[in-house]
């Protein structure tokens, strides 16, 4: 199972802080989440900042980044402040 933790606006939209799910890649994982929650679409989820085990997927294989049992995925929205 992959542990998925939600942060930022995504977490407020889904009203969920974390779930466990099975998926072979980030892309598939996002599709599964979109199927499970009406509040968000796959297209919107694709626009999240995604970390796999603490590393941004853009430093890995982007949406094609493979996932294995026990991985932790963190899903963020962009932030700024001051």
């Amino acid at each position, binding site marked *: 199972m992959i542990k998925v933790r939600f942060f930022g606006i995504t977490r*407020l939209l889904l009203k969920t802080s974390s779930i466990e799910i099975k998926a072979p890649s980030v892309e598939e994982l996002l599709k599964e989440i979109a199927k499970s929650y009406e509040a968000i679409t796959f297209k919107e989820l694709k626009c999240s900042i995604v970390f796999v085990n603490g590393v941004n997927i853009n430093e890995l294989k982007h949406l094609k980044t493979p996932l294995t049992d026990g991985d932790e995925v963190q899903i963020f929205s962009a*932030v700024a402040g001051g």
Partner: protein
Amino acid sequence: MVSTKYGGYMGKILKIDLSTREISEYPWTDEDRKLYLGGKIMAAKILYDNISAGCDALGPSNMLVVTTGPLTGTGAPSSSRFNISTLSPQTGFITSSNCGGTFGMFLKKAGYDGLIFTGKSENRVWIEIVNDKVTFHEAENLWGKWTGETQTLLGGKNGKIVIGPAGENLVKYSSIFSDERAAGRGGVGAVMGSKNLKAVVVSGTNIAQPYNKDKAKEHYKKWVFALKKHPLTGKQLPMLGTAGLVSAMNARNILASRNFTRGRFEDFEKISGEYLAEKYLITHKGCITCPIQCGRVVEVEGKKVKGPELETLGLLGANIENNNLELILQWNYLLDELGMDTISTAGTIAFAMELQEKGLWDSGLEFGKTDNISAIFEDIAYRRGIGDLLSQGSKRLSERFGGKDFAMHAKGMELSAYEPRSAYGQGLGYAMSNRGGCHLNGGYLVVLEGLGLNMDPYTTKSKAALTVMFQNLMEAVSACGSCLFTTYEMFPAPLISKPNSKFSRFANSVLKYSGGVVNIVNKAPGRLLAINVPMIRHINAVKYATGINMTFGRLKEVGERGYTLERMFNIKMGLTEKDDKLPKRLTEELSDPKNLKTKVPINIMKKQYYKIRGWDAKGIPAKSKLRKLGLLEVTHQ
């Protein structure tokens, strides 16, 4: 009678000498308006011209300069800000503390672009300004009151700035409050207290008229629409406030934890903006004329009060190892009421905790121990017991008890909640900032280094160039009277809302090679960049509000002029290049022992920064640079 040809301004700066009660108009010409615009830059010029080396920040010769920008009160979005600058008792250098709320708008209604307070009143007073009438009121009945009660007692529909007990007792990092908003940093509250001035109340019947009312109105309307549409200013900030940064910073190893020993906190979720929104948020609100509405409203002791910002969450949470969000809400409210800067208070407490742990000073403060914190805050405000020592801040504590390498300040001002060893540009900003350890005055490069965008945080490449550009731009935006959050709308929305797209990945990867191009812009004379850049809406806003022929080049040059003038003020007060530094913890200790990159290579970036700024190896602006900015005569009289 407005004595300026420009719109937006009221054309008058009032100088009030509290020693003699003499009231006069401070000379300020249209040429000054064009060169210095307003806000913190206007204040820097006034301070440079009037404050001599050796001035005692808490003595009568120091000036407290309250200024607005030309957009304040004209209906421009997110532009109700006002600025308070002075010689800081905390750093010994300039501080410029910016505040939201309504005071700036009411000051303009009273008919003034700025107020200057000098001297020291013999008795404790508060001052009422209604149009041309200035009245000194005895303040014995208000002295000792907390900031909320003081404002309630003053009453009326007007703009107020007040101090609490911390300002009265000259705490080095005490603040000035307006509504629930704070001019938080640098000890401006202590300067007001040193003048025996408890409060200033302003109101009037004047109106700040834009130069071209129709065009200004049309431009502002589009600006509001753009701010509401942008993913940062239209979604993230209203929904989560700055509190939304906690989780993102933790993921990027930049959430200051345990007095900056590391950038991650195990219990970050318990102090996060998401948790705040789920458990405690009642609603969100904002300053007048602001569509962003970033403020949090929470309940403390049965009252609806302002919720904490990211800085307070991080520094009163992760940095002292406290995972109790409810306590942070209470402490935030208490510190506001006492009139103290949450950042410096929390930073000083964390330093004392590490001193305790290392056996250097027994203060009773310990990481993770929270039961004595509220009492300590009051002790600081009233300068009682150990509170008296804590009221002096980390720098002075380290001079007395040791621990300079882990006293987390720059130029005497405690660092904000961004741990810079995984955001090199932010580290450079802290070291170079004119007012000390401030994330915003430092250029806020962390927004490129993993928060808004995803530039490599561990490279020194282009960081100096981008820091200079951001510092100058933010300086100018602040001088307009605008909130710095309006700058986020300048980031193209697709870069923010589609971080995984090929375009975003490409943009993020080339940012570290952007230094050359950025420097061409940095160095180009303003007149060569006489263009409008539509994404910087402040350009046309100033043009329509004032009638000044503002261009991108001119706005950039105004910012550079301001930053350089503040630097020259600091040099006059004794600053040397040795002051442009970070605590050794950040430059010599790794934040992540497994990652050799996690310390800030400050010297490389500092050298580049000086060169780009046109400063010599000692950090002094070259005469040619001063001449180019029209500052040579100002600074070499």
